[in-house]
């Protein structure tokens, strides 16, 4: 710390005049980032979220490019090439693509090169073939389309049904709100699995019934969030101000409320997606999925599980893709939540 004398010596005599600056009390504005750019930079700094985003892009690309790339389609059977392990000619040195089948007899592994046995060393099956000789690579990526479709359905349901009902119920209140709240209360005391299972039992298994089932269950969470947020915003000054200025209800909802709750809506959407994908995979597993020869990840897992000890590769690849998809959506949802509201940051 300097002594008073040292301090004083650093200022010259001529400095002791009133400064009389004109900008007294004018606040300097420090370069602050816009909220959106701030959120983007927070999102990109989150390694998990970026990983999730990249994985989702890869899976989407593969879902469409994968089957044509393999040169097979999901339904052509080839009974001479049944249950073949994964094989890529030229990459046999990688154990998982060697085309060697390992069976266990009394705990002792017996290895057979299936492709050599059948004299088809030049045939490629990246994920192997199933019990009917269909290329598993084509089937897995075709199946992942179902999961992606379900994700899309979930987003649509969330925004069209959940968000609208939540907004209306929160904004107008009264009888509509009371009625909707009772429906939500009862629906949320029934386990969703039960609702979905019952519905599919009543209707025929297929994409339509899965969509309907999702429609009945998945809007609840979103409508709750939208309603709570609307209720909170409704009481705030800027909405009251718009009201007193004579703005119509519709324009208040779309211009004032919606932009302000958009972040929460997106986050909630992202959280519903893994749920929807899981529901489809679960239904497929217990035999209520889309009918053959179409495949979904869930039905592939279910089929593969039946011969898991013999042909583990049949179940491994669809499980890995499904797990990666769920993980990626969850990571991205977390990342978005943190980016949108740093205070909400959890883990």
């Amino acid at each position, binding site marked *: *710390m*300097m*002594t*008073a004398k040292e*301090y*004083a010596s*650093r*200022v010259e*005599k*001529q*400095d*002791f*005049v*009133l*400064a009389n*600056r004109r*900008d*007294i*009390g*004018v*606040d*300097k504005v*420090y370069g602050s980032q816009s909220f959106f750019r701030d959120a983007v930079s927070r999102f990109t700094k989150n390694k998990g979220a970026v990983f999730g985003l990249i994985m989702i892009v890869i899976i989407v690309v593969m879902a469409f490019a994968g089957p044509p790339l393999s040169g097979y389609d999901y339904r052509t059977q080839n009974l001479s090439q049944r249950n073949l392990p994964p094989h890529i000619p030229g990459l046999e040195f990688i154990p998982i693509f060697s085309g060697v089948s390992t069976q266990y007899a009394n705990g002792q592994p017996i290895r057979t090169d299936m492709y050599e046995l059948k004299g088809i060393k030049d045939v490629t099956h990246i994920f192997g073939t199933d019990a009917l000789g269909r290329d598993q690579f084509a089937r897995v990526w075709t199946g992942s389309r179902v999961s992606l479709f379900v994700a899309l359905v979930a987003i649509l349901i969330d925004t069209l049904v959940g968000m609208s009902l939540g907004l209306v119920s929160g904004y107008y209140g009264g009888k509509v709100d009371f009625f909707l709240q009772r429906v939500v209360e009862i629906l949320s005391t029934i386990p969703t699995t039960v609702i979905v299972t019952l519905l599919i039992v009543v209707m025929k298994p297929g994409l339509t019934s899965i969509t309907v089932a999702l429609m009945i269950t998945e809007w609840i969470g979103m409508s709750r969030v939208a309603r709570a947020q609307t209720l909170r915003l409704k009481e705030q000054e800027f909405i009251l101000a718009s009201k007193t200025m004579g703005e119509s209800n519709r324009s208040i909802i779309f211009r004032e409320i919606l932009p302000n709750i958009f972040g929460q809506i997106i986050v909630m959407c992202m959280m519903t997606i893994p749920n929807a994908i899981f529901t489809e995979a679960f239904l497929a597993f217990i035999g209520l999925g889309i009918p053959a020869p179409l495949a979904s990840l869930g039905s592939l897992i279910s089929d593969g599980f039946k011969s898991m000890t013999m042909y583990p590769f049949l179940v491994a690849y669809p499980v890995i893709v499904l797990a990666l998809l769920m993980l990626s959506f969850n990571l991205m949802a977390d990342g978005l939540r943190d980016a949108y509201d740093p205070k909400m940051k959890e883990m």
Partner: protein
Amino acid sequence: MEKTLTIRNLSVSFSTSNGTVRAVRNVDLDLYKGETLAIVGESGSGKSVTVKAVMGITSNNQTIESGSILYRYEQNENWTERELLKLTHNEMRQQINGTHIAMVFQDPMTSLDPTMTIGMQLMEGMMHHLHLSKQAARKRALELLELVGITDSEKRMRNYPHQLSGGMRQRVVIAIALSCNPDILICDEPTTALDVTIQAKILELIKEIQEKTGISVIYITHDLGVVAKVADYVAVMYAGRIVEKGTVDDIFYDPRHPYTWGLLSSMPDLSIDNSERLYTIPGSPPNMVNLPAGDPFAPRNQFALEADYKEESPTFKISDTHFAATWLLDERAPHVEMPVSLRRRIDAMKEGGVSHA
């Protein structure tokens, strides 16, 4: 008069994602036994950080850069000295907090544990520090509740915080702070979260307790009205630094720093002619990450000298009790008077006996 707390050259900084914030810079403060020190300043001026350092409440990104906090207390008629900054967190908790230095927090609505009865929250500190039995602690808790003016104390002991009003909760918080007979009570804006009518009662209560127990009090506030009511000594902080300090009379009747002038001018006063527009200090507190060169107050100061833009002023001694950090006190400085309206106000206060107390 015995000094109980001596803060010397205290500097505290925080590392944030935007850079280092020097929240407290070279602070010197003294607290005498049985007296009240008020630290005044806008939010972000470093007043809370200063007292939190005294309490040993630190956050992870905080560094104490320099300084000492010397605490002296009387034990068996001997004065003992402790250097608080040298104690570990646990030593602070075990030996100082509660029993020697206690704190009343700003918001009584959030500073009580919602899941525990008032009685238990009062008793747990006593049972731990004073080794009282449950019955003895209970008896003392009842006395404390009476002391802070809670009448149906038996019933209140069994209540949970949510069953009490804000003023009542603040009384409980004060009772908790007093429970282990501390020598120093730190009140961090104890009345800002309360209704105006209750504010006055709480202030009176603390004053009353001070008279009864001889405890020393540090007030943190941004409200000069509170300072006028309770303080013996006043320290005015701006941007982490003490810009002026002195007895309450020094500050109210003979303010020297332009910032203090601004604060006093902006204080609403019912006794003064209302036709005058209430003064406000232009601008807003500085961004502590991007502190401008020179005196941080210069950009808001209509009395700023060119010198203020170049270098921060040292602290000048005006009297034995009165200090201020402004170049206006330098011998080379032009003669600058406080604003006329403030002069008139102060004169009116002096004459009319419109006491500030």
